[in-house]
């Protein structure tokens, strides 16, 4: 399986019926493709819609209905449009169940850096700081390494997005849970060993006795809902 598919399928397993979810630009946007068909999750896009859906046919696009990247999207029946203050009131005010964001670095304290590489790349934080500060659950989805270097570090070298400890890190190699004691290796991807994850990770990992394999199946089909129990 492609690294991005592994990550999206595993993150999809974290979703629960009825949740309000915000997906960041990039890797996280693939998550809805792997939700079980019978699951109802509501996607918020911070530019002002609850109930975001996949893009409709070109003939049905509405130039006033876009995602946070400016691309045309659809909306479910019963969707709600909101202004920027309500959108971020939902995010900061504890109304958002889950946010899934990409990451540049995460460290042993579970802190995330994902908005700037000083002197090189200054995209800005957009909504990321509010999302990481305010969402009930923060999931970082990212490839494990960039240019051969681990993105899971002892200490972030880039400016932090928030001092909040994120709740879960999902990569193509592993599921890692930041805890007050440190980073705990919860699962490995199919075909990946615990030793391989340790070797690919700069940060110290706490290894429980039992580290199961991600329950994402062997093909690219969404995992049935029953398998999540």
């Amino acid at each position, binding site marked *: 399986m492609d690294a991005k598919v592994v990550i999206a399928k595993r993150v999809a397993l974290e979703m629960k019926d009825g949740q309000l979810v915000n997906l960041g630009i990039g890797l996280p946007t693939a998550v809805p493709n792997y939700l079980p068909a019978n699951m109802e999750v509501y996607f918020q896009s911070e530019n002002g819609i609850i109930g975001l859906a996949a893009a409709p046919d070109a003939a049905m696009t509405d130039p006033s209905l876009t995602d946070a990247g400016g691309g045309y999207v659809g909306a479910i029946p019963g969707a709600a449009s909101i202004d*920027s203050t309500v959108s*971020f009131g939902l995010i900061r005010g504890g109304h958002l169940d889950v946010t899934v964001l990409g990451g540049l670095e995460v460290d042993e304290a579970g802190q995330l850096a994902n908005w700037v590489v000083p002197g090189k790349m200054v995209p800005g934080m*957009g*909504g990321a700081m509010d999302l990481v500060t305010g969402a009930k659950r923060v999931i970082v989805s990212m490839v494990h390494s960039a240019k051969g270097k681990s993105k899971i570090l002892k200490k972030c070298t880039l400016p932090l997005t928030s001092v909040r400890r994120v709740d879960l890190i999902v990569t193509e190699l592993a599921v890692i849970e930041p805890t007050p004691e440190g980073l705990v290796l919860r699962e490995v991807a199919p075909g990946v060993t615990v030793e391989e994850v340790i070797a690919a990770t700069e940060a110290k990992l706490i290894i429980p006795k039992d580290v199961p394999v991600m329950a994402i199946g062997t093909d690219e089909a969404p995992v049935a809902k029953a398998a999540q129990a």
Partner: protein
Amino acid sequence: MIDKAISCLNAVEMIPDGAVLMIGGFMGVGTPNRIIDELVRQGRKNLTVISNDTARPGVGIGKLIDANAISKLIVTHIGTNPITGKKMIAGEIEVDLCPQGTLAERIRAGGYGLGGVLTPTGLGTTVADGKRVIEVDGKQFLLETPLRADFSLIAAHRSDYRGNLEYSLTARNFNQVMAMASKVVIVEPEHIVPVGVIPPDMVATPFVCVNHIIARCN
């Protein structure tokens, strides 16, 4: 009834070089494009722009970047417009990056007569540099100050002839809150409709906030 209709040309003539502008829109969606084109055509310079982003080159606020019309930005994100990044690194544009929820609340504070807002967003990060941390009920918050501008340039789906506004889907974004936070508010609606067509319950921005409505034709 006060006639608020104005040509795009005359509206932009009111905006001097060096003005502080709030401009609605999110990646060019919900941005008043005719006003922007006219600002470029009249060659405005040295503008300060408060907005979510600078869209992309050639799109929305990106056109003001292309035309070297902006000297300062207060925005949340510039990553989608590489020209903004280049001008920032070259020192041609001063860029003040602000978390998106904080930007919305700073504008709201400016428009609602508040002395600022207390937010947990940015605590412990570089965003907190130089700002006061205030403790309320044992929790820490950053004090973020209000934003106001000389002109708000906003886009709406429909305006009636009084200036009651209705927005559409994600084109609403910052427009609604910006309509409260400037000395002069100029709206560019997609449609102008007779008074009464927008029912009171559907009015998102009440007419008293709107000074000028861009007429259908110049």
